[in-house]
């Protein structure tokens, strides 16, 4: 039996981020990591709670930390970058703000122990497992796959929540993972830039503008794919890249546009580990299978 972690899936892992969910499960199994889902978890509040109310911003994820404490494991692994950031923020608030802690302990009927550490799943893979262990499972090295690592925002920012397990301006852990899987991590300038987040539904002009910069930046750097750890980044880059910018609604596709596939880092691991994953690849809005087929990887 490998190491056990408490696990917070978040709302998207089985829905819009199903590729992340399926690949995470397969990869953890292959690496012998047991993920124990925390009981009756709730939404972390995502981009909306903090916009509307400061207490709610921290209180919604605080309930999940209370639930995680019941599991009895110290490390709480969280795949989604945004969920991770919210739970990390709540943990800082519970630790440092006595009044907030007392309020939450009262409302939720628990005693904060400060034992549970919210961690990004990427951090868990990159820092709890050795390179040898991560490489040992590779049966299908991602030879010829040139990918830029797109860290985005909340995976590594702000450092007062993330605790600097990777550099907030020049992170490297996803690049290292791409290389360990046999791919080529392409350096580029936009790895920590924002995709536009939840503006995608109401100011899609902003999101198209930002996604265009990202995809063109990746292309200029010589990449054929992007890698992410965030379902929001995925939805925006995967869903918005083929559309024209500006204000017209409904948005029209660009003429003769060459698409850029984007993967969750766990998908690349599942592919390299030869896990039964082909079916889920078709759920992307930009189908990555032609690229993988051309490279002989799927």
């Amino acid at each position, binding site marked *: 039996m490998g190491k056990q972690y408490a696990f917070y899936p978040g709302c998207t892992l089985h829905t819009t981020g199903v590729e992340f969910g399926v690949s995470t499960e397969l990869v953890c199994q292959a690496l012998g990591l047991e993920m124990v889902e925390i009981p009756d978890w709730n*939404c972390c509040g995502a981009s909306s709670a903090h916009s509307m109310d400061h207490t709610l911003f921290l*209180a919604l994820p605080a309930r999940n930390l209370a639930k995680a404490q019941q599991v009895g494991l110290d490390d709480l692994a969280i795949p989604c970058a945004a969920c991770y950031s919210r739970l990390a923020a709540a943990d800082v608030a519970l630790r440092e703000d006595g009044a907030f802690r007392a309020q939450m302990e009262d*409302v939720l009927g628990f005693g904060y122990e400060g034992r549970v550490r919210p961690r990004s799943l990427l951090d868990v893979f990159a820092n709890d497992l050795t390179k040898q262990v991560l490489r040992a499972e590779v049966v299908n090295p991602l030879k010829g796959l040139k990918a830029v690592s797109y860290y985005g*925002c909340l995976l590594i920012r702000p450092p007062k929540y993330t605790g600097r397990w990777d550099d907030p301006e020049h992170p490297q852990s996803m690049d290292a993972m791409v290389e360990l899987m046999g791919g080529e991590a392409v350096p580029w300038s936009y790895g920590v830039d924002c995709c*536009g987040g939840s*503006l995608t*539904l109401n*100011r899609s002009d*902003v999101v198209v503008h930002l996604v265009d910069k990202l995809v063109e930046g990746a292309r200029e750097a010589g990449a054929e794919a992007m890698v992410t750890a965030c379902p929001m980044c995925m939805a925006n880059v995967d869903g918005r890249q083929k559309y024209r910018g500006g204000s017209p*609604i409904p948005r029209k596709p660009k003429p003769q546009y060459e698409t850029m596939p984007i993967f969750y880092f766990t998908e690349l691991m599942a592919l390299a580990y030869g896990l039964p994953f082909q079916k889920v690849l078709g759920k992307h809005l930009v189908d990555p299978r032609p690229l993988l087929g051309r490279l002989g990887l799927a």
Partner: protein
Amino acid sequence: MEPNLGFVEQVSDLSHQNVRRCYYCLRCTAGCPAAYAMEITPAQILKMVQLGQKGTLLRSSAIWLCIGCETCGTRCPNEIHAGAVIDALRQIAIAEKVPAGEKTVLKLHEAFLDSIRLWGRMHELTMLMQYKLTSLDLLSDLDMGLDMFVKGKIHPLPERIRGMGEIKRLFKAKD
């Protein structure tokens, strides 16, 4: 415009940020992905909070365009998280019933929180339906939504968590 001298205090308290420390180095604006679309940029927002320009700020579109990417907060030499300051401005605008400068942005946040209030988790389909109906933005993204639905990425039925009593109490606990 008449300055509101207590405003910087109010915003600093609510945001847990010391807005007075801003010396206008512009790093927040330089790194902001949405600044190009804002009529008042993040550094200007901080300066205007210092100068008590409450009305202009609360009515602005800019305060609704912050994506919360935390680039500003990570780079600020004075450790001011402009995003948290902007969140506080939104909250004051909501509390004082100032019409949102980007109405659809507020409608989305409301639909999102209502989903949590109702189910404990976010359910895309019902959340999007509420958003579409309240924002009257009925036509955009139907193709993308349908594509995701067909691929099974948007579930038709929501699931409710058991601890709804706790969720209710958390909503009551808000300021």
